[in-house]
């Protein structure tokens, strides 16, 4: 009997899994022994890390998008029909159009979304770059900005953990290049007691902030924003004025996860090694969707997807999983407009970023294009 693999979500995690499984199960797909179905929400696939460059006009919007059908292996049965309810007891997914799709193996890759609306006043007064509309508005705001107090405000939880530092350094250089550097005062706020969750990154960023005159406010968890007074207030009792507020909004998981009672906040309780949903043997979770306490980042999704591909293939062919996820995360860190570094770590190896260089920045720029090979499962 045919084994049905159903993937919910067409972002990076789901796309890598779908393509990887198809590449390794060619015979089974040909013989009808396996089918791979993806339930997506959009015809287009967006390269999300590219949004960082949009406010500065450093990337063309068209470079961020590809037709999802062209990114996917042609053997994937791709439907733009989002999952509405997932029933892990009945092994089936109900879609928005009313289809009922049964599965033998399910991959939950529903991702995360920004929730600026969870902070009073934020949608009215804040800018962000974590979606295209926000990045466009920020680009316009930067075009018109002539100087003043700039607050870069970071909220938990959020994906792409180094992006807040990256935009801060890029803003500094952008203002300087625009000739208004001396008229702009940047203040960076962070939820915990240092500049970044990763201790070595925080230690590196501290002296850099000092060198550039960037101020910081740690232990700052946003309570509210007053759009009329142009102030932002923290739960810890600190109030900051701003002329331009750039926020990394708190994130939530997908609605279908909470609607299906699969996890508070849209995060699915997941085994840190097997990536199985807690309580299921045939439901796997990948990317931002897990509740695993590691970075929500494209690389996390990629490394998890590689494990899931091997395990799904092995389950189909040999009836047993192949290997476990070791917690690997890799992040490029743009340290300005012309320099960068990178950091990697896993469950047992602490991060140890090297000195920034122009070469790593160029490699990051190259990766902005190589991404499409990653999504196709070729890199």
């Amino acid at each position, binding site marked *: 009997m045919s084994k049905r693999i159903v993937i919910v979500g067409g972002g990076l995690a789901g796309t890598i899994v779908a393509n990887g499984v198809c590449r390794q199960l060619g015979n089974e797909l040909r013989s009808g022994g396996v089918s791979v179905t993806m339930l997506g929400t959009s015809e287009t696939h967006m390269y999300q890390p590219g949004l960082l460059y949009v406010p500065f006009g450093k990337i063309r919007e068209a470079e961020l998008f590809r037709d999802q059908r062209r990114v996917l292996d042609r053997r994937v049965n791709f439907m733009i029909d989002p999952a509405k309810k997932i029933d892990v007891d009945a092994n089936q997914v109900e879609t928005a159009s009313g289809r009922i799709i049964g599965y033998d193996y399910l991959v939950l890759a529903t991702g995360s979304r920004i929730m600026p609306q*969870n902070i009073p006043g934020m949608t009215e007064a804040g800018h962000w770059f974590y979606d295209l509309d926000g990045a466009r508005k920020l680009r316009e705001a930067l075009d018109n900005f002539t100087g003043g107090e700039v607050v870069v405000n970071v909220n*938990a*939880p959020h994906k792409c*953990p180094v992006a807040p530092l990256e935009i801060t350094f890029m803003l500094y250089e952008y203002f300087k290049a625009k000739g208004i550097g001396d008229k702009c005062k940047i203040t960076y706020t962070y*939820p*915990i*007691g240092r500049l970044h*969750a*990763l*201790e070595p990154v925080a230690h590196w960023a501290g002296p850099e902030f000092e060198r550039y005159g960037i101020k910081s406010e740690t*232990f700052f*968890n946003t309570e509210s924003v007053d759009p009329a007074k142009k102030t932002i207030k923290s*739960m*810890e*009792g600190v109030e900051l004025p701003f002329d331009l507020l750039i926020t990394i909004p*708190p994130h939530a998981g997908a609605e279908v996860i909470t609607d299906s009672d699969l996890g*508070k*906040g849209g995060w699915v309780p997941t085994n*840190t090694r097997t990536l199985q949903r807690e309580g299921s043997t045939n439901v796997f979770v990948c990317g931002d969707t897990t509740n695993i*306490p*590691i*970075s929500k980042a494209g690389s996390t999704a990629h490394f998890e997807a590689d494990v899931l591909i091997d395990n799904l293939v092995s389950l189909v062919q040999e009836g047993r999983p192949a290997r476990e996820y070791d*917690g690997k*995360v890799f992040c490029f860190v743009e340290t300005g407009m012309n320099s960068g570094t990178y950091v990697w*770590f896993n*469950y*047992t190896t*602490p*991060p140890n970023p090297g000195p920034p260089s122009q070469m790593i920045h160029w490699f990051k720029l190259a990766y902005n294009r190589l991404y499409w090979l990653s999504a196709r499962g070729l890199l």
Partner: protein
Amino acid sequence: MSERQKIDARGAFCPGPLMELIAALKLAQVGEEIEVLSSDKGSAADIPAWVAKVGHVHVGTTEQDGCWTIIVRKAK
């Protein structure tokens, strides 16, 4: 009282125990308790300090073999 939520942040380098707790508290109901497991000594000091600052309750901390268990109750 609902079942205590457990966050196993041992060996979690990023986002780390306190950031995980902050995110979990946003989703918790008032009165709910969250237990954070951490292998990071700094978090064992930072978490109670932060909890006191924002007005939640630090129920207690225990340490065994380099693992700290920190229990926090959402108070508002």
